[in-house]
């Protein structure tokens, strides 16, 4: 049983009185793209918020890269190597594309040359960002903003990149472009945890997948198998 990069056991969490995670277990293998699908309000985004420290867990254990990080804050989790590309992108208005990307590396206190190299790596992955580096990030189109948000996550040189709702509000064509970009990032060895509403895209992109219902895992396994599983097709691919 190879060592998992991220291991979550019995995770529970709540927004005030409303409990959203009911004992969730998950393993993310290094180098792979793992997808988490499930109906909305099932707790997918809440899971990522717990993993990035935005939402405190009320129970369960979390291990990352061989270390117990249960209850750690955003800063510690990012330092450990977990970068979170939040739902809705949430770029910083009033700051340029480049400043937004530089903020991704805020914690690393890296020198000028190192930052220059990281920026160039992002601009090679997303050339459009290079052309618009001086522009206010929030004036970009939805797809370009998603690229900038992913680039900002990469600037932290994470071991695990968590992407929340890649396709929300984007035209199918933009989603295809972004999916290809994630594939190339993964091929370079970066582990990706993708929370995605569009089940087809999610299973197409990932090798492992988890199906989450009301805050707990109800099915998991290799993505191709899940894609053909009649129960999953009925539940998530509707009556097609």
């Amino acid at each position, binding site marked *: 049983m190879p060592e998992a990069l991220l291991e979550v056991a019995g995770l529970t969490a709540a927004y005030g009185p409303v409990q959203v995670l009911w004992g969730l277990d998950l393993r993310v293998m290094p180098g792979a793209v793992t997808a988490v699908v499930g109906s909305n309000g099932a707790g997918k985004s809440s899971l990522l918020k717990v993993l990035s420290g935005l939402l405190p867990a009320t129970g369960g254990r979390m291990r990352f890269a061989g270390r117990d990080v249960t209850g750690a804050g955003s800063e510690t989790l990012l330092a450990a190597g977990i970068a979170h590309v939040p739902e809705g992108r949430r770029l910083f208005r009033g700051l340029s594309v480049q400043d937004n990307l530089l903020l991704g590396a805020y914690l690393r206190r890296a020198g000028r040359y190192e930052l220059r190299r990281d920026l160039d790596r992002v601009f090679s992955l997303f050339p459009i960002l290079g052309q618009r580096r001086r522009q206010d990030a929030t004036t970009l189109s939805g797809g370009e903003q998603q690229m900038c948000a992913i680039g900002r996550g990469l600037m932290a040189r994470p071991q695990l990149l968590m992407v929340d709702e890649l396709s929300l509000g984007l035209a199918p*064509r933009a989603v295809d472009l972004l999916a290809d970009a994630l594939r190339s990032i993964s091929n370079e060895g970066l582990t990706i945890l993708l929370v995605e509403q569009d089940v087809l895209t999610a299973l197409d992109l990932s090798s492992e997948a988890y199906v989450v219902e009301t805050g707990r895992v109800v099915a998991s396994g290799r993505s191709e198998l899940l894609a053909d599983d009649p129960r999953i097709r009925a539940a998530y691919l*509707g009556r097609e």
Partner: protein
Amino acid sequence: MTPLLELRGLGKRFGGIDAVRDVSLSVAPGEVVGLIGPNGAGKTTLVNLITGVHRASRGAVIFDGQDVTRQWPHQAARRGLARTFQVVQPFPRMTALENVTAGALFAGAAGSVAAARRQAGALLDRVGLGEEAHKPAAILTLPSRKRLELAKSLAMKPRLLLLDEVNAGLNSSEIDDAVALIRSIAAEGVTLILIEHLMKVVLSLATRIVVLHQGALIADGTPAEVTADPRVVEAYLGAKFAQRQAKALVGVERA
């Protein structure tokens, strides 16, 4: 038959850029029109112009033969021109029942607060939120909040209902339930405009599709015509969709 809604050369300029350019369109009573287009194409801006959230820079909005270009949103609501929000907008600290009561009391012009409350209760049962009636809206799950938004719009007794991405964020089986609900609303004769990214929804409901790209109408026709139109595929749908679509069109049965 005089159209229920008519847009004549509608335009809107936001600080230098034309969010909506010279849109002319008419919708007959009872039609179910799909409004699609890439992100930033001006779909939500167009809805905002029709419902008076923004003032048109050019052109006119005619509703039931009356020029309503300069109307306030509350006047649109009282005329039976209702819309749902892309990001659901409940009254957070009010219960689901009170949220729907607000729709019935004001735009729905119910006689009294008590009468509005009764109408709201019936509508909540219809959308399947009966047992969550007394929960504060803020703690409802997203699918329930979407159904709450639909119930609130119905309480306003609309003649034209603009559904702005009411299914965004739902998974496929939740979408099927929502589609069934929307189909029952259309069956009551409410004219619908569906603003959507989810082609699955548009294809199973719309009798006609209008495509907006960079603020202008680039296609207007039946679902089959529009999804085959090369300009639409290039601007919005993307090649991968075309193959999946070809396969899916064979499988989709429409009631």
